[in-house]
C-alpha cells in the first residue's frame, strides 16, 4: 500500500511539473520530496520543496542580517565582488533597474553576496553602495565567511562561483539573478547580463507578488 501511494505521488508530481509552466504561475525549482503528514487526524501526502537554508551574515551597514530578515519576503540574490572587472558592471546596471522598480516595496529585497570577503570589508561595501547610488534597506550587499557563501551559491542558489587566478579579477562566477519566493523556494533564474531576461525577472516578481498566500498548515 505504502509503495502504491509512493508511485501515485510520483505520477502526480510529474503532472504537476507540466501544469506548473502555465502562463501565470512560476515553476518551483530544486529537489522535492513527498512527505506524509497528519492533518486533522487524516493522513495527507504533501510535497516539500527545496528551500534556502538559514544563514547569518553582515550587510553594508555592518548590521547582522540574514535569512531571518528575509522571511515572508520575495527577494533576488546574486553573487559579485566590488573589484570585478568583467560582468559585474553589466549586472549592476541591470540590477539597478530592478531596484528602481521595487525599492519602495516593503516585502521585496535584493541580496548581493560578495565572493571576495578578504577585500570586500564592510566599509568597502558601504562605499561601493554609495557610489552605486543605493540607499535604505531594499538592497543589501552581504559579507559572510567564504565557505558559507560559496556553499550557499552552489547548493542552494545553484550559481557556480570559484576562486580562479586565471580569470580577470581572480574570481569566476556566473551572473545569474535568482528569484526566491516568500517560502524560500527558488522560482526563477535569469542571466543578469541580459537586459531582456532581467525585464522578464521584473515581470515575474510582479507575478509572485500577486500569488495568493499559502494556506497555513
Amino acid at each position, binding site marked *: 500500500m505504502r509503495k502504491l501511494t509512493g508511485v501515485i505521488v510520483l505520477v502526480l508530481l510529474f503532472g504537476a511539473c507540466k501544469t506548473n509552466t502555465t502562463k501565470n504561475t512560476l515553476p518551483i525549482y530544486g529537489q522535492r520530496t513527498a512527505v506524509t503528514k497528519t492533518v486533522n487526524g487524516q493522513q495527507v501526502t504533501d510535497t516539500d520543496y527545496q528551500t534556502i537554508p538559514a544563514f547569518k551574515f553582515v550587510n553594508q551597514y555592518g548590521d547582522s542580517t540574514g535569512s531571518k530578515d528575509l522571511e515572508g519576503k520575495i527577494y533576488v540574490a546574486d553573487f559579485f565582488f566590488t573589484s570585478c*572587472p*568583467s*560582468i559585474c*558592471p*553589466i549586472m*549592476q*546596471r541591470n540590477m*539597478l533597474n530592478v531596484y528602481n522598480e521595487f525599492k519602495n516595496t516593503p516585502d521585496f529585497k535584493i541580496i548581493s553576496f560578495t565572493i571576495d570577503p578578504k577585500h570586500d570589508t564592510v566599509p568597502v561595501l558601504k562605499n*561601493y553602495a*554609495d*557610489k*552605486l*547610488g543605493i540607499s535604505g534597506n531594499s538592497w543589501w550587499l552581504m559579507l559572510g565567511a567564504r565557505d558559507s557563501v560559496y556553499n550557499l551559491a552552489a547548493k542552494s542558489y545553484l550559481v557556480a562561483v570559484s576562486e580562479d587566478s586565471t580569470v*580577470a579579477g581572480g574570481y569566476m562566477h556566473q551572473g545569474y539573478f535568482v528569484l526566491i519566493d516568500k517560502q524560500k523556494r527558488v522560482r526563477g533564474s535569469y542571466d543578469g547580463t541580459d537586459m531582456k531576461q532581467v525585464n522578464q525577472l521584473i515581470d515575474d516578481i510582479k507575478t509572485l507578488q500577486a500569488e495568493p498566500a499559502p494556506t497555513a498548515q
Partner: protein
Amino acid sequence: MKLKVISGICFLLFVLIVSCQSDESIEFKRYYSAGAIVYQGHCQNCHGTNGEGLSALIPPLTDTAYIKENLKSLACNIKYGLKGKINIAGKSFDDAMPAEADLTPIEIAQAITYITNSFGNKQGTVTVDQVNEDLIKCGN
C-alpha cells in the same frame, strides 16, 4: 563594339564615383567600424552600450569637453590603465580602470576613433601613427 564603348564609359564613371569618396572617409569608416567591435569586446561591459557608464563607479564617455581635452592621453590610459580622481560630466570618479595591455596600437586607435566619434563626440580619425606617438609618452 558599341557595347564595349558603353561598358568602358560605365567603368570610368564607376571609378570616378568611388574615388570621389575621399581616402580620409574610407579610412575613418574602417577605423570606426573595427573600433565598435573592440569597444564591444573590451569596454562596453564597463562603459555601457551608449557610453553611459555606471553611477559614480564608472564614468560616462559622453563628456565631449573632457574627451577633447584628453585626446592625447587616451591611448596611454587605455593601454596602461587609469586611476586617481577625475572629474567627468560634473561628477568625480575615483576608481581604477584596468590596463588593457593586450590591445595592439591599431586596436587602440580603432577604439579611440570609435569612442571619440560616438556618444555625442566628434573628433575624427585617430590613426595608429598618432597612437604610437602618444604611447611613447607613457614609456612604451
